[in-house]
């Protein structure tokens, strides 16, 4: 029988070990944030944010088109992905007590695990070949495919948080079910719903792989829905592979802008949900 002091020692040991694990996991995050800020902040300037990319071997220019591209993609994905995702989620929450809904739930779960490059290849084969050019629409479509399962699931969960008593009260007053859903349930679930949407947007803003084959990347601002376009994650990827130090620095600057967008969305929803019980 092991002695009590030995057991106490083991207790302490594993406390420190598990704390060590936490530190090991947090260190990369801190390092990334540190490096991105240190290397990216010197790049920030009005010019950097508005000018297009420069020539290799000369000035690196700026990331204006990349920022615009990311904003356009967010807009397109919101137009396509949010409605479809939310309405799917409404179905799953409000009408979803059957086998069909169960299988949709499983499919949604499975879709979130599909590698984004596979989605990119699919949209390339299905849309870009069909359209015969690279297109922001294809990029928006690919990102929407990523976003829809996520938004559907968070919408379902947020609607499930609405207490049944509210629904029943509305139905008892004679309001039709569909009106109830729109006028009562959705507003009640508003904050969780929006949280889910914003987190999905933050996620797709950082996706690169689906964009490689759908919008290709470009040096110029948006030129139309049948021309290639740039985006922040794409620009980071391209610049990181160049030997020129000024382009590599540009990659860090773009990374800083991207991280600011993503983190402010993430932290923003956290702060707004402070005190509320959200997972």
């Amino acid at each position, binding site marked *: 029988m092991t002695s009590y002091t030995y057991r106490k020692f083991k207790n302490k040991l594993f406390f420190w070990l598990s704390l060590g694990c936490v530190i090991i996991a947090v260190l990369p995050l801190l390092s990334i944030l540190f490096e991105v800020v240190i290397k990216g902040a010197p790049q920030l300037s009005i010019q950097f944010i508005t000018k297009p990319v420069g020539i290799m071997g000369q000035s690196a220019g700026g990331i204006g088109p990349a920022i615009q591209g990311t904003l356009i993609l967010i807009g397109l994905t919101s137009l396509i992905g949010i409605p479809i995702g939310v309405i799917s989620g409404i179905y799953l929450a409000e009408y979803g007590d059957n086998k069909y809904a169960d299988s949709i739930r499983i499919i949604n779960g499975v*879709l979130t695990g599909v590698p984004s490059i*596979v989605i990119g290849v699919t949209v390339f084969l299905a849309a870009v070949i069909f359209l015969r050019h690279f297109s922001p629409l294809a990029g928006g479509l690919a990102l929407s495919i990523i976003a829809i399962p996520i938004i559907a699931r968070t919408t379902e969960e947020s609607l499930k948080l609405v207490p049944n008593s509210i629904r029943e009260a509305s139905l008892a007053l004679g309001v039709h079910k569909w009106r109830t859903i729109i006028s009562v349930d959705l507003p009640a679930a508003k904050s969780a719903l929006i949280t889910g949407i914003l987190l999905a947007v933050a996620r797709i803003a950082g996706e690169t792989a689906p964009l490689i084959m759908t919008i290709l990347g470009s040096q110029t601002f948006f030129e139309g829905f049948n021309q290639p376009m740039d985006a922040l994650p794409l620009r*980071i990827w391209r610049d990181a592979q160049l030997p020129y130090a000024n382009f590599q620095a540009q990659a860090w600057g773009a990374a800083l802008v991207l991280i600011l967008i993503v983190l402010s969305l993430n932290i923003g929803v956290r702060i707004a949900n402070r005190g509320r019980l959200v997972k």
Partner: protein
Amino acid sequence: MRPKLSGDLLFKILTTVLAASAAVILIVIAYTLFTGSLPVLKWSGLYFFTGTKWNAVRMLYGALPYMLGTLVTSAIALIIAVPISLGIAIFLADMAPSALRVPISYLVELLAAVPSVIFGLWGLFVMRFWVVKYIETPLSTYLGWFPAFSGTPFGLDVLNAGIILAIMIIPIVSSISREIIQAVPNSVKEGAYSIGATRWEVIRNWELNYGRSGIFGAVILGLGRAVGETMAVTMLIGNAVGPAAIPISLLKPGQTMASLIANDFAEATRGSIEYSAYIGVGLFLLLVTLSINVIAHFIVARSLKIKGGAVE
């Protein structure tokens, strides 16, 4: 008094149809990839899964090296990430003072919010040199005779890709494990404490035991994420092709299925067999991630359903 049904019916139809979008998307993905890979599957047959040469000139397409590459990098990622994730899960579920729990769990989740390409950027310009200096060069110097550590490390290799994957899957494995551990019924824990077990003993002998299958599910989910991860791996794995991509040595460049497509698909001539070969790799990657995720889904759902809300 019969309520008007048309509005309800329309809305129900609308939502039902749109909910099917997930299924439609999945079918489109599977169909597109399947038809796109038929040419190479007809051409190479079984060689696609067993062969190692990848050569557009001699029209040989063996994807085995990349499958092995995915396997090895994911294995490295799991070996590194699972103990660390369990440590974090234990710390947050049981050992941490309650004031620290929210900030620390938040930090770990923030790790999941960082885009993959930024991980790749950081890995390429920061982490890589650190790993080369403190891990790979000693390994190569002292253990270089061992095939797994042969070669001159310069940072773009299988080990580095595995490490960055590990960092990226820690949030998901640790957060699900934490849920599993927290779902252990209080009665079990109280019973253990009442016979005099220390905190660690309760964790090791009761909680981890009880949550075994759920944690296994979390690990599988992490595996699924590691297999499908593209950008960070692409930037760190070194872009080897053909037999050179067989991951014998951890310190040499390699290639995973996902990184192969990201690196080289754009160069293939449209409509050629080579083109179809990349699509074939994509199809296989899809099948692997689908299987892993379906299995994980069932394991995690089952254990959360059984264990959660048990007798208080």
